[in-house]
C-alpha cells in the first residue's frame, strides 16, 4: 500500500483494516501521533487527511487512498502550523504534553478555515480533543496568539 505522509510517498506493509494510528506508530515509527482511547473519544490520534482533521484510531489505512496525510511530524510545513508551534512554545501550553500533537493538528485545521476564530469557534473545533492535564486556557490563548501573528 502507498501512502502520502507529510509530502512523501511511503510504502506501508500493513493489514488493510489496521487503523492509521497503528500503521503510523508501529509500522512506520512515526510515534508523534498518540494512542489515548482507541475509540474516537479523545483526539490524541488526530491527523489530517487532505487538511481535514480525522481520528487516526478510527481510520483504517485502506480508507486513506491517495489523501495527503499530515501528522505532527509534518506540521511545520504549514505556515499556520509554524505559528501555532511558536505560540504553543512561547505560551508554554503543554503540561505532560501527550495530547498536544492532536490539539495542534485540530487547531491548524481551524485556523486554515477560520483565521480569526471566536471563543465559540474554538470550543466547536477543539472540544473533541481531551487534555487530561486541562491545559485548555492556554490552548485557547495560543490559538488566538497564532491567529494574531
Amino acid at each position, binding site marked *: 500500500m502507498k501512502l502520502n505522509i507529510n509530502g512523501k510517498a511511503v510504502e506501508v506493509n*500493513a*493489514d488493510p483494516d*489496521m*487503523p492509521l494510528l*497503528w*500503521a503510523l*506508530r*508501529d*509500522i512506520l*515509527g*512515526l*510515534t*508523534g*501521533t*498518540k*494512542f*489515548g*482511547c*482507541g*475509540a474516537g*473519544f*479523545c483526539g*490524541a490520534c488526530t491527523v489530517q487527511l487532505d487538511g481535514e482533521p480525522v481520528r487516526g484510531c478510527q481510520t483504517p489505512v485502506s480508507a486513506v487512498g491517495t489523501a495527503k496525510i499530515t*501528522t*505532527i*511530524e509534518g*506540521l511545520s510545513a504549514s505556515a499556520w502550523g509554524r505559528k*501555532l*508551534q511558536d505560540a*504553543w*512554545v*512561547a505560551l*508554554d501550553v*503543554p*503540561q*505532560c*504534553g*501527550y*495530547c*498536544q*500533537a492532536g490539539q*495542534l493538528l485540530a487547531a491548524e485545521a481551524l485556523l486554515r478555515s477560520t483565521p480569526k476564530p471566536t471563543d465559540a469557534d*474554538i*470550543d*466547536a473545533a*477543539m*472540544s*473533541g*480533543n*481531551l*487534555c*487530561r*492535564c*486541562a*491545559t*485548555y*486556557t*492556554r*490552548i*485557547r490563548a495560543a490559538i488566538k496568539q497564532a491567529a494574531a501573528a
Partner: protein
Amino acid sequence: MSLSRRAVLKAGVVAGGGLSLGWQLGSARAALPGQLSAFVQIAADGAIRITAHQPEVGQGVRTSFPMMIAEELDVDWAQVTVVPAPGDRAVYGMQLAGGSMATPTQFERMRRLGAAARAMLVQAAATAWGVPAAEISTGSAMLRHKPSGRSARYADMASAAAQLKAPDPKTVTLKDPGQFRILGRRVPGVDNGKLVSGQPLFGIDARVPGMAYAAFAKSPVFGGKLKRANKAAALAVPGVKAVIDIAERRDLKAEIDVPLPGIEVLPQGIAVIATSTWAALRGRDALACEWEGGDAAFQSTLAWEAAAAKALKDGPQKPGFINHGDAPAKLAGAARQVTADYAYPFIAHAALEPMNCTAQVTDGKCTLWLSTQTPEDARRMVAVALGIKPADVTLHLMRSGGGFGRRLMNDVAVEAAVIAKAAGVPVKLTWDRAQDFAHDWLRPGGWHRLAAGLDAKGDIIAWHDHFISFGRGGNFDPPASIDQSLFPAGVIKDYRADVSVLPIASTLGWLRAPINNAFAFVTQGFIDECAHAAGRDTLEYRRALLGPPRAIPMAAEGGAEGAENSGTPYHTGRMRRVVDEAAVMARWGRKLGPRTGLGIAFHFSHLGYFANVVEASVNDAGDVKVHKIWVAADVGQQIINLSGAENQVQGSVIDALGAALGQRISFADGAVEQVNFGDYSLARMNDAPAVEVKFISTDFPTTGLGEPAYPSLAPALAGAIFQATGKRLRQLPFDTSQLKA
C-alpha cells in the same frame, strides 16, 4: 530545609575538558568524572549542561529543577542545555514525582549545587588572575574582575575549576531572592519544542531493535482465574506471533524485602505477542477469555451503597476513631444543630498515555523504557519478579503522559518484564483504555454523615462526622483513611469522627491531592450549610471560623492511635490571607445575574494554602456553566517557574471541575463498569472557564504545586450553584437534573 550530613559534592573533569559537579551519594558510582551523575557540566567548549533527574509527568520538573541550579550558577537560561537522567537512585538520589514533595525537599539542595559550581569557577579565576575571589563578579556565564578589567568565560576557567576540591555545600553563599534572574520568571518547558513537533519522549514512543508488541489478557475482576481461552483464534489473527501463558498468580508483596506501594500481585493471564499493538490487542480480544471467581467478585456499587446506608442507620463500627474534646456534649448543648449527608464515588486517574512499558531481558539483565513516577520502585519490583538484582535493571526514565498518582504504581513494568523474558524478545506492552480503568488504583469513594453544633451567633462549636470508606480486615486502606491533620480537626476543639470500613479487594491508590480531594468537598460544603443556617455570609463565616492568625499543631497520621502532634502546623493566618485575596479577586459580594452564584472554599494540603472563588450560572434545563475561577495560593516564599506554576493551578482546578461534573467509577459483578471516555467524562475545551491565579509570597519555605489547588474547587462550585438555585449538592459527581428551574 537543612542538608543532611551526608550531602557531599564531588567535582570531576568533563570529557574534552571542563568542570562537572554532582552529589557524592556514598556510592562508588556517584559523581565520577564525565559520568551522567554530574548535575552540572561546564565544558571547555562553552556548553553548559544541567541534568534533570526527576520524573516528568507534566508537573514541569524537567524545567524547574535545572532553573534552580542555573540561577545560582549565574548563567542565562538560554545558555543552558538540559539533559535527561536515567532512573538510578545510587547516582541521583531520590527520584520521585509524588506528594508534591520534589520542590520542598530539593529546592535548597539544587540551589547549593549551582552556587558551589559558581564558587569553584570564581576561585579558579581568582587563582589565575592573582586577585581575591571576593572581587570577582559573575553573570551570564562570565567572570569579571572590575579593578583590573579582566574577564573570562566560565568555559575558560572550567578545566582549572575541575582541579579544585568541591566546597562544603553548607558553606556556599546563596543569592538573595531579590537578585533572582531566572527563578520566578515565566520559563517555557524545555521539551516544548520536541512536544510540538512530535518527537519521541514518552514511554509509549520507545522503539527497540527486534521489538515485538504485546497485549495482556487478565481478569477484569481482581484475582479472577482463567476458565477458558481460544488460543487458536488469537494465533489466527494476522500479525500475532505467539500466545504465552502467565500461568501463576504471584504474590510479589510476599517476595519483596522492603514493601513497595505499587504491586501486590502479578496476575494470571495470557500475553499475546504480535507485530503491532493493534494486532496484539485484536489477538487478545480473539482469545475471548472467560474468567471465574476472584477475591473481588463480591464488589458492587449497589451493595456498597446499601451497606453504607445500613452503617449510617446502625451506627459506626469504630466510634471515636478521632476524638478531641467532647463533641457529643457540645452538640447536645448547642443553640442549634445542622446535619447533612455527603458522598463521593471512586474516581480513576485516566492518564492520557495508557499504561505501557517496553522491556528487554537478556542474560539475567533487564532494561526498561518506562513512564513512571517512581523509577527506583520499578527497578526493585521488576528485580523481584525476575529474580535478579535491582542493579541489573536499567531504567530509561521516559516522560509520562500524565501521572496524577497512577504512575506511582509500576504494575505494568512487572508484567512487561515477565512477558519479555518469556517471549525472548524485547516487548512493548500497552494496556488499552478499558484495562486502564479496570486495573486502576482508584481514588476510594466515601460517605459522611455530619452534624455541627452552632452557638448563639451561629459559629461552629462542635463537629461530628460518621465517615465510611473502604479497607481490608476492618482497617482503612491508607488512601481511604481519615486523619487528624484534616481541617477542621484542630481548629474546632470539640471534634469527633466515628468510622465504618467497607470491605474491598480491588486496588486503591493515591490520586492528585489524595484524601483531601474528597474531604475538602465535604467539609467546605458543610461549612457553607452552617453559614446559611446561621444566616451569615459564607466568606465572613469562614473568616470567623479560621479566627485569629495562629499556627495550630496537627497530628501527622493515623486515627486515635497516632495522636502525637508531629505534623505540619496549620497556619490560620496564611489561610485567611488567601481567602481574603480570592474574595477581592472575584469582587465578592457584587451583584450577579439571574440564576448565577459565587461560591468560595479553601483548603490546605501538601503544605500549600489555597482558596478559590467560582462564578457559575445554571440555566433552566439545569446545565451548569462555570464563568470564571479565581485562585489565591500561598506556597511559600518563591515561585520557581511562574509559567509552570500557573499552568499547574489552572489544570488542577479544571481537572477538579471535570471530576465534579462527571466522573464516577462504579462496580458490578466485581469489576469496574466504565470502559472508556464515553462513560467517564473529563473536562473539555467547552467546559473550561478562564482561571485567574495569584500567588502570595510569604516568609515560608517554597512548597509544591502539582496537587493542592485541586481540592477546594468542587465545594466552591457547589456554593455557587447553591447561590444560583437554592439547591445544595452533597454528592459527587453533581446530579444536575436536580437543578432544573
